[in-house]
């Protein structure tokens, strides 16, 4: 079982209290009528399926009933951070790659 930190309850709770609700940071097209069917279809149905860092929404169903975002590694299942709706992640695939590179260079020197 995971222990997941809820940024609203400000506590780490059991995974059983939560449910996963899909990819985060998907922006609705400003003017749906002016975009192509393909672009609308992409927005509506198509999701990224990365191996590695994924930003996704979770719902604290049995707790405060708020949605929040989580940054999770789909390979290791490790949750790097959780953050409130409307906020941006501090940990991304880029920052992790940079950290890894820095660590490797540190080892080499």
């Amino acid at each position, binding site marked *: 079982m995971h222990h997941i930190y809820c940024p*609203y*309850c*400000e*506590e780490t*709770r*059991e995974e*059983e*209290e939560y449910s996963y609700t899909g990819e985060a940071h998907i922006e609705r097209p400003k003017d749906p009528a002016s975009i192509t069917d393909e672009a609308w279809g992409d927005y509506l149905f198509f999701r990224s399926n990365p191996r590695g860092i994924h930003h996704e929404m979770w719902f604290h169903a*049995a*707790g*405060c*009933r*708020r949605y929040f975002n989580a940054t999770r590694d789909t390979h290791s299942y490790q949750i790097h951070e959780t953050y409130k709706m409307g906020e941006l992640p501090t940990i991304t695939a880029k920052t992790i790659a940079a950290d890894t590179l820095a660590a490797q260079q540190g080892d080499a020197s």
Partner: protein
Amino acid sequence: MTSVSTNFSAGDMMESPLHHHVAHTNHSDAGIVMKEDKFRGHLNLRGNPEDTAFTSAVESVLGVALPITANTSVRSGDTVAYWLCPNEWLLIVASGTQGQVEADLRLAVANKGADQHIAITDISSGQTLVNLSGSGVAELLQKSTVYDCHVSNFPVGKVVQTTFAKTGTTMCKLEDGSMDLVIRRSFSDYFFLWLQDASEEYGLQIA
């Protein structure tokens, strides 16, 4: 025609359809004492905690300030306010007064000039308040909920919404060490059957 012998007798092996309702008698030295605080007024309140006109209006009606800190509660006489999320509270008031409290809240919020983007919902008929006390409560909660209810993690006044077996509950620790649980009406039968089963080893008393 041979008669079929029926060796079944109403003994230890058989349970009548109503077995679960009569299996537990009231133990005088029960480790779990359940008391339903019936017909209290339950109001769900939503509003912006950063709007001081809203918070002061609510305070003027309840007599206490709304709890703004996560997982906390405040108490004033018969009234208790639970923090549910950053902009949602559960107010439990004296039986029969919920209509008046709701009207008072609406009036106070309007008079204080607070942001009108608020919601006050009477949910009294949808849930009930149950108090669990006794020496076995800590262990009972250990096997009923995924939350760590140990005293080191659950001080007096703390409010936690979590799972209770396969239903949900809102728990609040009282000064006497007992636990108040808000449970849904639709899950009350389930809750009670679970409680009976889980408290079998401690003895259950209905107060």
